[in-house]
């Protein structure tokens, strides 16, 4: 076994936690993989600590009218507020450690066993700072930026001449109307569109997407990357569905890089197998 003195002095100090006490360059925590860490560093950033925010929320009850397509606003707001609280708490942690932003945010929802109306919302990501203290990477209003981009995607986005502003989201909990018996009978033996269902899904998706886009506008973003629309039910009645749109709002890095800086990728064929 090699002698501990083979390791550079500063590394030993960090391993022993000697520089951890109140020192800004102390030990960091992160959930980065090795490659993510390398690429975040390559992008000119250093991880400083895991940022966590959680919120345990009692979601109220709201019933949709049996035969009506409608948004259940109370549930939409509950789902939005709980996620927003978890995100805000995570961002506070990041601000507390003077991070420029948080990358790799994972946002999860979990049901607690003892009560079907209680949901746990958790946001977790790695706080990073610009290694040279560049001030131009903060999010809106000087707050740390938030982003669900991985370390790899973060590097790539910066290479493309853009920086993340914040994770934007839109939620819409929707009650899809039940089809009346007479109408069902009318469709026996033929293929026909059930337009009330099509409308419900369209409307709910449209609302979630509009809300996410509103957030991006508020943040002053040029666009939103990595958007996905999730559909889920959190132990509600079968016809109640949440549509959740989420992505990372981005803005160009003024005058620093342009899109052509991103090198054309080399095509590689693995000959192992």
């Amino acid at each position, binding site marked *: 076994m090699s002698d501990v003195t083979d390791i550079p002095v500063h590394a030993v100090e960090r391993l022993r936690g000697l520089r951890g006490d109140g020192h800004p360059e102390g030990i960091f925590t992160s959930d980065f993989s090795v490659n993510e860490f390398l690429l975040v560093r390559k992008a000119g950033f250093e991880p400083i600590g895991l940022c966590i925010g959680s919120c345990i929320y009692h979601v109220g009850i709201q019933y949709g009218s049996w035969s009506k397509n409608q948004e259940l606003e109370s549930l939409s707001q509950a789902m939005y507020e709980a996620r927003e609280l978890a995100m805000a708490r995570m961002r506070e942690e990041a601000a507390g450690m003077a991070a420029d932003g948080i990358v790799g945010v994972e946002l999860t929802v*979990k049901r607690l066993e003892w009560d079907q109306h209680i949901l746990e919302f958790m946001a977790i990501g790695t706080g990073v700072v610009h290694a040279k203290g560049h001030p131009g990477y903060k999010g809106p209003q000087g707050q740390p930026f938030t982003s*669900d981009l991985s370390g790899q995607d973060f590097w790539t986005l910066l290479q493309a001449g853009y920086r993340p502003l914040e994770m934007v989201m839109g939620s819409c909990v929707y009650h899809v109307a039940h089809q009346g018996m007479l109408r069902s009978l009318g469709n026996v033996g033929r293929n026909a569109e059930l337009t009330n269902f099509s409308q419900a899904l*369209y409307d709910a998706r449209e609302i979630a997407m509009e809300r996410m*886009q509103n957030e991006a506008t508020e*943040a002053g973003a040029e666009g939103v990357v*990595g958007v996905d629309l999730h559909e889920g039910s959190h132990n509600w009645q079968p016809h109640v569905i949440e549509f959740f749109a989420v992505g990372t709002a981005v803005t160009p890095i003024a005058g620093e890089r342009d*899109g052509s800086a991103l090198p054309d990728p080399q095509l*590689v064929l693995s000959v192992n197998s």
Partner: protein
Amino acid sequence: MSLLSNLLGMARGSGAARDSEQSAQRMAEWDQALQSGRLPSFVEARLAAAAAGKVPWVATMSAAEFGLARGKGVRPLAMVSGTCWLHYGYSWTRGHAEGWRTALARLQHEARAVGANAVVDVKMRTVRLAVGESMDFTLLGTAVRIDRMPEATHPIVATVPALEFVRLIEAGITPVGIALGAQYQFLDPGVGMLMQSILGGSGGGGRIAMTSSSAARVQGSSRPFTNAVLPELSQFWEGIRRAAVAELLRDVQRQGTGVLAHTQLGQLFRVEQNNSPPRFLGRHIVIGTVVNTRRAIPVPHEIRAALDMRGTASPLSHSPPAGRHAYPANEQGGAI
């Protein structure tokens, strides 16, 4: 992102907190739009604002895809979708074909409204909600404007992600749309002939005359200890597959010169019947991305061979683990 600002956004009419009158009005607009093949005014407004660059663009692309696509003159505009919830009271298989085709037409409609000449990364989705014999057919994708391509009345629809889309364009291969083939047939050994679906006949599977055969012979159960080919069942199943592929081919011919990356679903069922021998149902659906390309165009890309020291653990030989965007559905909590 603040809660207050979001709620304010909702109050401004784009989002929640609508009263029931507004909600009913919105529904009426959807109803009218779907009946007449138009878009509701609020969707048109969103897409027009995106086309004019008044609202942030929205892309399903990853950061890498966005960066590369931008370098190739592909600009994201908005997320577009097409949905059709179809009841297949007559035929599951034909219903699937019709459902996807309707959704595709609606997706293209939205893409035209936003001034896109292509839609990339088109994903097939469904909301799992048991409503009798029916299903949700939804397509979601990113509408883009490709600078080098002219305005299009029929935007290109590609199921491939932006990264592959750019590779195809570079190699002189233009993805032009989605093609689909769907067939189903019943085999009724008791009757001794193949019952072909009424509508499914368009698939060209043809009526295959069979000699009178018992259910036992079709299934091979009359001679349980013998190895034997089951000719009726083989012929039946092969016929369905061929017919589905023939329909796919006709769909491709209408649009381009070839089809790539097709996915397929084939199912063969034994349907038990009261007081008569069981019958068989076979159904087969194939869906792929249609491309337009001339023969023997050279591929401009250099390809390097790589020997990966990680062997079987190489990420090159496996699909990468789900990225951070793929929120795994929590067993208890459902999706995010």
